[in-house]
């Protein structure tokens, strides 16, 4: 089975040769993707990639360190605005603006992490909620951020190469997503990662073992914010526009939903959760065009509800999924996968 024989095996990035080969095939597939699908599908995948980065980052905080955050839309916004402002107002090149935006976001993450040392559970959720909403409000009023209208984001330019097409954007976004995912998987095998998990399992025991709670907790926030900030910046380029209105509470809740649905404490789970929710969000609103359920729902709408309210079904479906996951499979999609895997490895017992 999965028995490890020594420490070095445990921290290996690729567990077996097949995993390594599989990863290479996946990367090749991702690389070839722009040649296989149309521009619109590519745009969808860009969005999924961006949301995956956020989900992975949030998972580091929630799944691995056991904190809660309902304010990640704030970090998303900070990353997006910082990057655009740095490029537009301060003339930074993209390759510099992106990491700097990430670090600015990480800085805010650190600051938000400080109160987390004293708060736990619901109080922390409320505090992060307050932070997220305050950020959006402040951004939409500050003059230099373009107010409610937001700012137009310039196209990505690396050196003298200006990237205008969806394919180009895909190359940039997907490469960054892949790098950050591998970094996350790696992180969790290091001292830092183990410290995070220890804190989640029992803060007091962790502290008793010599883990500096203050440092690691705020670090978790900072890292999570870094990821989210980078994703926010990339989103600004995918949309070519930033406006404060899109970074609202629903966005924070959606991020949280992504990792809950995908599975806390699992990088792959985060990616799947992000993919599923992004896809649902975009497709649910045209549910009346779906083959069987569409007309059926329209029928009910006309009879008992209002026809124009049908797009509201997005909220209902996402909410229902969130509750269903908690009730039936608290470990999310990853949990389902683990159960299936165990079933098959233990079969026929």
């Amino acid at each position, binding site marked *: 089975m999965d028995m490890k024989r020594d420490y070095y095996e445990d921290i290996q990035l690729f567990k077996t040769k097949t995993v390594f080969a599989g990863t290479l*095939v996946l990367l090749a597939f991702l690389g070839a993707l722009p040649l296989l699908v149309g*521009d619109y599908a590519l*745009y969808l995948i860009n969005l999924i990639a961006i949301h995956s980065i956020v989900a992975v980052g949030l998972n580091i905080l929630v799944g691995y360190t056991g904190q809660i955050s309902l304010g990640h839309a704030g970090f998303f916004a900070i990353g997006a605005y910082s990057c655009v402002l740095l490029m537009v107002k301060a003339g930074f090149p993209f390759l510099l603006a992106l990491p700097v935006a990430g670090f600015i976001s990480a800085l805010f993450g650190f600051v938000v992490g400080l109160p987390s040392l004293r708060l736990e559970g619901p109080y922390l959720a409320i505090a992060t909620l307050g932070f997220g909403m305050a950020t959006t409000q402040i951004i939409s009023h500050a003059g230099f951020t373009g107010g409610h209208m937001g700012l137009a984001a310039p196209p990505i330019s690396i050196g003298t190469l200006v990237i205008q097409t969806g394919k180009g954007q895909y190359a940039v976004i997907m490469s960054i997503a892949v790098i950050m995912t591998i970094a996350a998987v790696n992180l969790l095998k290091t001292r830092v990662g183990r410290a995070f998990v220890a804190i989640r399992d029992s803060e007091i025991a962790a502290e008793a073992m010599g883990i500096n709670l203050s440092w690691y907790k705020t670090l978790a926030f900072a890292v999570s914010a870094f990821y989210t900030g980078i994703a926010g910046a990339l989103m600004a380029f*995918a949309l070519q526009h930033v406006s404060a209105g899109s970074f609202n509470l629903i966005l924070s809740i959606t991020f949280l939903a992504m990792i809950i649905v995908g599975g806390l404490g699992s990088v792959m789970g985060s990616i799947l959760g992000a993919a599923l929710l992004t*896809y649902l969000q975009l497709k649910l609103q*045209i549910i009346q065009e779906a083959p069987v359920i569409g007309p059926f729902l329209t029928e009910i709408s006309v009879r008992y509800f209002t026809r124009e309210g049908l797009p509201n079904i997005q909220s209902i479906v996402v909410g229902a999924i969130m509750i269903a996951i908690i009730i039936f499979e608290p470990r999310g999609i990853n949990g389902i996968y683990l159960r299936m895997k165990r079933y098959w490895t233990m079969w026929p017992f």
Partner: protein
Amino acid sequence: MKRASLLILVLSILLAGTMSVSAEEKVRGVTDSEILIGQWGPQTGPAALWGAVARGTGVFFELINSEGGIHGRKIKYFMRDDAYQPAKTKAIGKEFVEDIGVFSIVGGVGTSSGMAVRDYLMQNNVPWVGPPTGSTHWIDPFQKYLFSIYPLYWQEAFLLTQYAAEKMDKKKIAFFYQNDDYGKQGLDGARKYMDEKGLKLVAEVPVEVADTDLKTHALKLKESGAEAVIMWVLPKHAAIILGASKAAGFQPQWMASSTLSDSEMMFGVTKGLWKDVVFANFMDVDSPLIKKYLDATDKFAPQEKYRGIFYLAGFLFAEPLVEGLKRAGKDLNPDSFVKAMESIKNWNNWLGHDCTFTQNDHQGMKSVYLAKCGENGKTIKISDWLTYTGK
């Protein structure tokens, strides 16, 4: 291995679902039998009231199709929900252009939503007619394929302020506005008038979209001693501020932007307080076309409950588009369409007034008329069509 293959499997399934076969056409969105037209709108979320515009356009196109279409082509209409969020609007824009392949866009409520896709649409030569907001962003900078119909907010505000000062003899005028581009453009118009006369507004009170408690705002207006207050907000806030002001004992002459021109609805929501409010309007409420459109609604969308101004606006913003399609003839492509639109001069066969496009000016309607809310919300015209004649 399992992990990776599972990931690949999931991705493939997702991709298979999203890929669609797009027809190879010479002109995007035009076939021998169909013209594809798209619109987005907030069908859910805080701005869902404006979703009626997109639905109105849908019925209008069905009416046109039932009358034989345009040069033998029927209009195929796509409506999407962006919940007033620019991120979703962008996705919808991409879907329209790259996935569905529409010929043109009509309407599309929301200035910030529209701005997220404006440049993208223009780069892809997608004609866009009638964004239902009076923002200056549609004509400044000039866009070849964008035809704006809604009279500019600042000009409307200017005319309202002028009327208040000159015809209603109000010296102390205040401005109550939504704290975003929509409200601020109105504010600019009012300020412009006051500057020209060497006066100042006695108060400029902003409100946030999410606010529901406007007591402080009412008190601020009351404190300024304003005799007339011009409102540039959402219907919800207009209703609340009237109530809050009355509760504070402050009852000036209320004036409103054309976005609040559904006087019947406002009368109902404010439980009668809306009486005597003066507002700007650009839809001819006495036009016989209104009956035609309401009859069409009975036929094609009988379950549509709300048939007020915002719903009819869906017709208004699409009428010039259809006129342009008709004039472009059988040989339809973006450039022939632009040429056809620019041939429209002083056109009055619609719900609006004097639609004019030229090669350098794509602002179709430049006039509004002022009206007052009468008994039970009836719209009573109190002025003729006013046109801004300044710089």
